[in-house]
């Protein structure tokens, strides 16, 4: 299945885009698979991505989280609110 992974802030600026389309297996795909695909598609971001957290449906989620069709996945880098 295809998921569009959302990017924000400095990581989006470095990527030059606000989302990255990623293909993962229909069954059993986890956030770890999504991260591996992101690293493959955007190798120049791999170092930055290593320190980023991933979120599914607006909540931080661990690498073993299984993803489903329609999930909203986002890369959350270093934040700076306030």
């Amino acid at each position, binding site marked *: 299945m295809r998921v569009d992974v*959302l990017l*924000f*802030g*400095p990581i989006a600026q470095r990527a030059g885009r606000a989302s990255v389309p990623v293909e993962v297996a229909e069954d059993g795909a986890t956030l770890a698979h999504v991260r591996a695909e992101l690293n493959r598609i955007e190798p120049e971001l791999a170092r930055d991505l290593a320190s980023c957290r991933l*979120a599914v449906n*607006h*909540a*931080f989620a661990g690498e073993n989280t299984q993803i489903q069709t329609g999930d909203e996945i*986002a890369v*959350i*880098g270093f*934040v*700076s*609110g*306030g």
Partner: protein
Amino acid sequence: MQSLSVSIVDAPLAANTATRSLAGAGAVVVFDGVVRSLEGARSITGLRYETYDPMAQHVLTALAQEALDKFGLMEIHVEHSRGLVAAGECSFRLRIASPHRREALDAMDWFIDRMKQDAPIWKTPEFSTDGDAPPPANPVQPEPEAKVPS
């Protein structure tokens, strides 16, 4: 009865005019985060805030609810800007009411620390074009100044 609200709004926050006293509250603490005019030695015209709105709303609401329970607060209200906020203007406001001052002050620190760790909000300085040197490659983000009314 407890009260909680979170709002993310375009541009700067209006001046704080809330003066209502809450029955039973012995402390009402308001923090205004104000954009400084300097980033290091360079002047900026403002900060541009980017928010991942649905998650920011979710995270800030969860933190506010946790603060209500953890510190026994009566009220917590959160406002944060998105978009450009000029230097000198308010980009973040936290209003907390509690029976005693200690809970309100502790909750204030706790909430702001957690927000800065987890709320998906990013800021980028807008530098003045008055002949300053070019910005550094990885600028350090300035912290807003705190204004706590006495």
